[in-house]
């Protein structure tokens, strides 16, 4: 019997790559959307983002989704961020600052309590939280709270947490890569991911001057008649 015939005749369960029926917010990056169940960041479950280094793109992957959520009037809470979420950068990425709230929690217990409160509130549509350590039972509570509120929850934890078991439905590990960000999907609903994902850097960090203008064009160099302009932009 041919394999195709068997698959056709007999009821054979096939591990289909991804569940389609998960409510999700598009990440804004097509290669990442293709690898996530539901085609985006899942709602109503915990998502863990594990990284040890900062500044490798851990927020960049979230900003388009946050921009979309806040533009729709949904509210986003940032809990215990390690640095100042810089308003000009967020605004430039399209995030509506009016829908954000930043919560500073001094202790571990306070942070977990605040996360639970935010997830219990129906008005909080997304929560970004930074936890160093969190026990399975505590994460389970947050997962239950997220289920009822159908919020998108991104928990940032150190890479060492990858070896711990977690009730999160989606777990990503981030590493710096030469031309962008390397993303390992450690856990997701559906078939496990085999190959790490490479997300190249946003074009804004092409060699250009820091004002976002493209690098001086060839014409300025070629045309001798063109008056030489100082390339140094000055704010005063």
């Amino acid at each position, binding site marked *: 019997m041919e394999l195709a015939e068997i698959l056709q005749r007999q009821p054979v369960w096939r591990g289909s790559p991804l569940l389609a029926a998960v409510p999700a917010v598009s990440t804004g990056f097509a290669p990442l959307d293709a690898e996530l169940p539901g085609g985006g960041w899942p709602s109503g479950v915990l998502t863990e983002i594990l990284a040890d*280094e*900062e*500044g*490798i*793109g*851990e*927020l*960049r992957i979230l*900003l388009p989704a946050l921009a979309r959520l806040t533009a729709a*009037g949904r*509210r986003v809470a940032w809990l215990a*961020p390690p*640095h*100042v*979420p*810089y*308003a*000009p*950068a*967020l*605004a*430039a*990425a399209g995030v509506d*600052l*009016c829908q*954000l*709230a*930043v*919560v*500073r*929690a*001094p202790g571990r217990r*306070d942070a977990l*309590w*605040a996360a639970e*409160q*935010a997830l219990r*509130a*129906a*008005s*909080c549509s997304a929560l970004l939280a930074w936890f160093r350590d969190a026990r399975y039972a505590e994460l389970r509570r947050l997962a239950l709270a997220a289920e009822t509120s159908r919020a998108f929850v991104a928990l940032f934890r150190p890479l060492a947490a990858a070896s711990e078991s977690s009730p999160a439905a989606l777990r990503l590990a981030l*590493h*710096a*890569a*030469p031309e962008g960000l390397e993303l390992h999907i450690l856990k997701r609903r559906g078939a496990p991911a085999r190959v790490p994902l490479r997300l190249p*850097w946003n074009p*804004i*960090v*092409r*060699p*250009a*001057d*820091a*004002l*976002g203008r493209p690098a001086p064009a060839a014409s300025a160099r070629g045309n001798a008649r063109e008056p030489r302009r100082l390339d*140094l*932009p*000055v*704010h*005063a």
Partner: protein
Amino acid sequence: MLAEVQGSLRYFAGLKPLVRELTGGMERLGFELRLGLGRTPRAALWRARSGQARLAAVPLDLLDADAEFFRSIGAATVGDLMRLPREGLARRCSARVLEDLDRARGTRPEPRTFFVPPRRFSAALDLPADVAHAEGVLFAARRLLLQLEGTLAAQQAGIRRFELSLVHRRGDPTRLEIGLASPARDAGRLGHLLRERLGRLPLAQPVQALRLEAGDFTALHGRSGGMFGDAAADAEDWLQLVERLRARLGRDAVHGLALYPEHRPELAWRNVEPGEWEPRESPRVGARPAWLLQRARPAAPEGLQLLAGPERIESGWWDGDDARRDYFIARSASGAMLWVYREAGEWFVHGLFA
């Protein structure tokens, strides 16, 4: 307390439910109630004071009449007095007694002015025994909160702040000031906030008495459960979340973000109330990092690979916080994208392009 209830009978669906609600409410507040009903204020007053259901059975002691004399002629109650001939009564006792009888019967009007509650609330409660734990304080405070809710409901008002003082046997009272994100009067919500605050408060001494004070009443109309209430309910829910977080973590623990027109990057943003910022046109600036470090960190230029720049920012000469910096986007040896600047030859990391 005299209350005109004829106008409210329809709302309460009858006298019995009204009486039930009244007695229930009074008991919750800790009062004992003696109720009298009548067609006139005076009749109701007499009935309540004497505990008699029938006006005729009210004893004469309540009136300003010479009870001794009337008892000697066999009149002990108001009913007896009303059976006596009017001219004889007018001669034997003061005109006031006759007037009171007329008022009770309803033949003489007795206008009353309605009570106008003050725009401040202040109530105290002595605790029957010294309380040494927060739960006990909360239990007692709930009664005061119910009173506050009643006062506010009567005036269609809400408060944004209230103060609870815990009086100890010795020393100054402990003052707790609780702020709300939006005007409210619901005793449950106020109690919730109070519980969060009391949970964090170490009671140095047992509490003998409580005092609740609130002023600054603002108009707050009852919300009718609306078909279109979703956006408003959502906003209310968010404010309550902010409130709850602040009650436990402190007022400064929750804030919103806003842009500020300022060249120096560390001042180009502000802490505000969540949602308080009005988007306005802001000048176009170069790439900005998603993370800004609280304080710029000195960096070694050797490990940095400069990718873009410089962006010269020179500002702040007027407030003494001079900045003359060249900003670059750089990649560190570990692959992180940094926002660095060079000021007077020294290099610093100011942000991370996360």
